[in-house]
C-alpha cells in the first residue's frame, strides 16, 4: 500500500518534470533537432528508475571503499584488535561445541578475546566461520589461526560485515523510512530519500563496522526493524526483533527503557491491557528461551554466560570516554575513593534517574516521535552514566538521532559532529584518518545537499547567539583536531589532548541530552494518530 503511494508520488513528480523540461528544451534548442530531443527527454524522464537504487548502491560502494583501509589492530601483535576478536570467535564457535563457547577450557583461553557477547553473536560467528572455512580454512583453524592475517582473510571478513549490513541494516532502514512516513502525506519524495541516505551513510556506523571492524549493523539493524514494526502496529514482531538485537549485543539494552515504556504505554491505551502485556511478555520469554536454549539446562551454564556478558571487574570507565564518570574523574578519583559495589549502585541509580522523565512521558502518551526521542534519551543517559562504557557506544544514541534527522536536522548534525570527534582518537589509532576525513566530508555534503529543496518552515535554522555559540564550539573541535594531529603532548601529561577532546564532547553531549529531553517533554501529550486509528 505504502509502496504504491510512493510510486504514484514518484510518477506524478516525473510527469511534472517532463512537462517542464520538454517545454524548455523545445524553446531553446534549434529547430532541426527538435523531434529527436523531445523523444530523448521523454524517454529519459518517463522511466523513473529509482534514485532509491542509486542511494543504496552508493551506500554499498562507500562501505566497500572504507573496507579497503586497515582494521583495528592490524599487524599489531600480540593482542591485535577487534578484528582478531571477531575472527577468534569464529574459530571458537566453529571448532568447539556450543556448551564450551563461554567456558575456559584448554582450547578456549578466555583471557585471549574470550567470547563476551550474547549467544546470537556466537551463532552469527558460527555462520560466518562456515563461510570462511569454505574459502580459507586456515584462517579459522583451532589455536593455530591466532593472529591470522592475510589479504584473502581480510577480504572475506570484510565481506561478512558487508553482507550482514546488506541483509539486515539496509532492509531495516528502508522499512523504517516507509513505515515512518507512511502515515504522513506532506513529506516529499526528496526528503524521504535524503533521510534514507543520512541513515544509510551514517559515518560513525560505517567507520566502526567497515573500518574498525565490528558487527553493529546487525544489532542496530534489528533495532531499526523493531522500531519500524512497532510503527506499523506489529508490536509482537517488534518485540521479537528487539529481543534479537538484545541477544546480539547486550549494549542494545540502552534502548530497553524506551521500548518498555512505549509498548507499555500502548498497552494501556488498548481495550484489554492485561492480555496485550501478557502476549508481549510471552514473545519476549519465548525469544530468549529459543536463543539461550543450549545454556538453559543446567542453569549454571546460563550463569556462566551471564558473567561473561557483564565484566564489572574492568572498572567503571576505560580509556577516555566522554561520559560523566570519566570526565569527572579529573576532579574526583572515583576508582580510588569508592568501592566497586558503591559505584555500581551509584551509576545504576543515576542512569535510572536520568531516564525517568522520558519513560514517564512515553507511558503516559506513547507516540512515534516520542518513542524515537525516548530511545535517544535513554541511550544517551546510559552512555553518560552507566558502568563500563566504551567510546564506540556513542553509536547507540547516534542511531535514534539519525532516525529523527528529518524532524530535528540541526540536532542530528550537532550530535554527529561530536560523536565523530569523540571517536577520533580511536579511529586515528586504527589508522583510519583518511576514511574519517572522507566520511566527515561526505556527511557535510549530504547535510548541505543542493539538490534538496530546503523546507521553508525553517526547521534547520537557528538565530543569534545560539548559532554563534555552536560555531564557536565547532571551531574548538576543528582546532583540537589539528592540535591532536600535529602537536606532541607534554611529557608530564601524555593524554592531555585526549582529555581535552573528552571534555569538549562531554559538554556537548550534556547539552544535547538536556535539549532532547526538553523536546520530548514538550511533545503534545495526547497524540493524534492513536485516536485516528481508533476512529478508523
Amino acid at each position, binding site marked *: 500500500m505504502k509502496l504504491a503511494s510512493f510510486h504514484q508520488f514518484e510518477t506524478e513528480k516525473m510527469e*511534472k518534470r517532463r*512537462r*517542464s*523540461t520538454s517545454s*524548455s*528544451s523545445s524553446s*531553446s*534548442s*534549434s529547430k532541426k*533537432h527538435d523531434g*529527436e*530531443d523531445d*523523444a*530523448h*527527454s521523454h*524517454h*529519459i524522464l*518517463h*522511466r523513473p*528508475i529509482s*534514485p532509491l*537504487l*542509486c542511494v543504496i*548502491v*552508493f551506500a*554499498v*560502494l*562507500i562501505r*566497500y*571503499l*572504507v573496507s*579497503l*583501509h*586497515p582494521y583495528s589492530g592490524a599487524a599489531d601483535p600480540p593482542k591485535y584488535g577487534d578484528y582478531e576478536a571477531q575472527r577468534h570467535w569464529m574459530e571458537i564457535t566453529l571448532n568447539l561445541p556450543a556448551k564450551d563457547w563461554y567456558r575456559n577450557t584448554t582450547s578456549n583461553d578466555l583471557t585471549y578475546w574470550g567470547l563476551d557477547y550474547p549467544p546470537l553473536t556466537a551463532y552469527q560467528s558460527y555462520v560466518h566461520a562456515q563461510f570462511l572455512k569454505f574459502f580459507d580454512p586456515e584462517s579459522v583453524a583451532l589455536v593455530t589461526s591466532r593472529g591470522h592475517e592475510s*589479504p*584473502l582473510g581480510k*577480504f572475506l571478513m570484510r565481506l561478512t560485515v558487508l553482507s550482514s549490513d546488506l541483509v539486515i541494516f539496509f532492509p531495516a532502514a528502508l522499512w523504517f523510512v516507509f513505515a515512518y512516513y507512511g502515515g504522513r502525506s506532506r513529506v516529499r519524495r526528496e526528503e524521504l530519500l535524503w533521510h534514507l541516505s543520512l541513515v544509510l551513510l551514517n559515518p560513525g556506523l560505517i567507520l566502526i563496522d567497515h573500518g574498525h571492524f565490528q558487527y553493529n549493523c546487525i544489532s542496530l539493524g534489528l533495532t531499526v526493524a523493531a522500531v519500524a514494526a512497532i510503527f506499523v502496529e506489529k508490536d509482537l514482531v517488534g518485540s521479537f526483533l528487539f529481543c534479537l538485537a538484545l541477544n546480539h549485543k547486550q549494549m542494545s539494552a540502552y534502548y530497553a527503557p524506551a521500548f518498555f515504556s512505549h509498548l507499555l504505554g500502548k498497552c494501556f491505551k488498548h481495550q484489554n491491557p492485561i492480555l496485550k502485556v501478557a502476549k508481549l511478555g510471552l514473545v519476549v520469554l519465548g525469544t530468549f528461551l529459543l536463543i539461550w536454549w543450549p545454556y538453559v539446562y543446567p542453569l549454571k551454564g546460563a550463569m556462566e554466560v551471564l558473567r561473561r556478558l557483564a565484566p564489572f571487574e574492568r572498572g567503571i570507565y576505560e580509556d577516555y570516554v566522554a561520559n560523566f564518570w570519566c570526565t569527572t574523574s579529573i576532579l574526583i578519583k572515583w576508582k580510588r575513593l569508592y568501592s566497586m559495589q558503591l559505584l555500581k549502585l551509584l551509576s545504576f541509580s543515576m542512569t535510572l534517574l536520568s531516564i525517568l522523565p522520558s519513560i514517564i512521558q512515553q507511558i503516559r502518551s506513547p507516540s512515534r516521535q516520542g518513542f524515537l526521542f525516548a530511545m535517544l534519551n535513554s541511550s544517551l543517559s546510559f552512555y553518560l552514566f552507566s558502568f563500563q562504557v566504551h567510546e564506540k557506544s556513542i553509536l547507540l544514541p547516534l542511531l535514534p538521532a539519525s532516525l529523527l534527522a528529518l524532524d530535528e536536522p540541526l540536532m542530528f548534525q550537532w550530535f554527529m559532529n561530536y560523536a565523530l570527534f569523540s571517536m577520533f582518537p580511536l579511529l586515528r589509532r586504527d589508522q583510519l584518518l*583518511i*576514511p574519517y*576525513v*572522507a*566520511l566527515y*566530508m*561526505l556527511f557535510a*555534503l549530504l547535510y*548541505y*545537499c*543542493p*539538490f534538496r*529543496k530546503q523546507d521553508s518552515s525553517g526547521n534547520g535554522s537557528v538565530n543569534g547567539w545560539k548559532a554563534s555559540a555552536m560555531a564557536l564550539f565547532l571551531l574548538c573541535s576543528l582546532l583540537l583536531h589539528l592540535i591532536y594531529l600535529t602537536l606532541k603532548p607534554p611529557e608530564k601529561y601524555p593524554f592531555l589532548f585526549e582529555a581535552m577532546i573528552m571534555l569538549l564532547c562531554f559538554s556537548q553531549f550534556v547539552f544535547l541530552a538536556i535539549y532532547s529531553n526538553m523536546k520530548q517533554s514538550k511533545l503534545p501529550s495526547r497524540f493524534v494518530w492513536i485516536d485516528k486509528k481508533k476512529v478508523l
Partner: protein
Amino acid sequence: MEPQIKQEEQEEERSNPQKLLWMFTLATIMKLLLIPSYHSTDFEVHRHWLALTSSLPLHQWYSDSTSQWTLDYPPLFAYFERLLALFAPFIDPQIAHLHNGLNYAAPTALLFQRLTVIASDLCLLYACSRLRTRPGLGLDSWRADLIWVLLVFSPGLLIVDHVHFQYNGFLIGWLLVSVSAVEEGRDLVGGRSGGGVVEGFGRLLKMGFVVGVVFGVAFGPFLYYGQIKAVLSRMFPFGRGLCHAYWAPNFWVFYIILDKVLAVLLTKLGFSIPASSASFTGGLVGESSSFAVLPKITPLVTFLLVLFAMSPCLIKIWREPRPRLITRWVAYAYTCGFLFGWHVHEKASLHFVIPLAIVATESLADARQYFLLSIGFTQRLRKLQTSTSSAKKGDKERSRKGTGGTKEEGGGTLIGWVGMSYLLGLLAVEIWGQFLQPYLLGDRFPFLPLMLISVYCAVAFDSQHGTKN
C-alpha cells in the same frame, strides 16, 4: 498547483555552480577512499618521473635510463611532473630521489602521489564548469547536470586514474577546455590548450601559429640542447610492436586472428608456414611481431589508415566547420586513431569515451552508444588488475555505480536488443575468464581470457564505429 510547478522550474533552471562543486566533492571523497586500493606499475613510472625531472638537468630527461621506466610522454607532461616534484620533499624527500626512491611505495609516497592526481583533477572541474556556460547551445540545466554526472563520476576515469594510477582526468580536462573554447569560437585558446594534450590531438586543430608557439615552448629547450631526437624516439616507440601486451580492442585484433586462422588452415592444407611462436598471445612487449601469412604492418601503413578513416570527417569539417559539432568530431578522430593506430593501449579509449559522454546527452542514439561503450570499457579495464581480487570487486561495484548513474538519467532499456545481447555476451565472456577458464584449462593459455575480451570488445567497438559514420 501551477505556481508551485513554476517555482520548481525556476529553481531547476537556476544555473548552479554549487551543484557541480557538490558532485565534484562527492567524487573526491570516493577518490580519497580509493587511496589504499591496488595500483599498477604506472605508480612507479610516475614516481620515477618525479625524481627524474627534479634531480636531473633538462637535457638529460629523455636520455637518462636509471630505471627501466624512461620518460616517454611529451615535454609538457614532463614540465608538469617537474612542478609536482616541487611539493614532494615536504611530505617525504625520498619520493623524488633518483636512486634511493626506486620502487619506493611507502604510505607517504602513496598518499602524496594519489593526492597529486586528486588535485590535478581540478582541471576537469574547471572544464565541467566551462561546459555549463557554453553560450548559444541551449543547454538546459537538466542536460548540463547529466553531463556533469557522466564526467565527474566517470567510472573509467575513476579506475584508470585513482586505482590504476594515471593523470587522465587532468589531460581530459585540458582537452575539454580546448573543445569548449573552439565551440565558443575562440580558436586560438583551443589550439593552445590542445597542444598540451598528450596523444596527437594537435593534428585536428590547424591553428598553425599558436600550435607552433606551444610546440616551440614544449620542445624548444630540447631542440636547444640537441636532444630532440632522443625525445622523439622515446615518444614514438615504433619498436614496441603493433599491439600492446594487453590487446586494445581495435582493428588489428581481427587482422591477427585472421592471420592465425589462415596459418592453421594453410598448414592443414599442406603448405609449410614458418611458425611464429605465439608472438602475439605471449604478451611480450618490445619485439616487432611478424605475421605468418598476411603482409607485415608497418607504422606508415597504420598512419595512412588512420588518416584514411578520418578523412570523411576531416573533409566534412573542412567544407562546413560547425563549432557545435566539434566534440563529436574530436571523439570520432580519437576513435579512428584508436582503431587503426600503432601500438595502442586500451586505456586510450578513455579519450573518446569521455567526449562521447557530452555528445550522449544530445540525442538518444548517442546515449545508447555511450552506454554500451562505457560498459564495455569498464569491463575491459578490469583485466588491468588481474593481481588482486579485492580490486576486481571494487571495479564491479564501480561499474555498477556507473550503470546506476547512467540509468538514473539515461533509462535502462533504451539500449535495445542488440545492446542487450552484447551485454549478455560480455557477461558470458567474463564468466569464462573468471571461473571456467581456471577449472577447464588450468594454467595453459594464460592470455586467452584477455584475448577473448579483446576480440569481443573489438567486435563491439568496431561496430560502434560503423554506426557512428
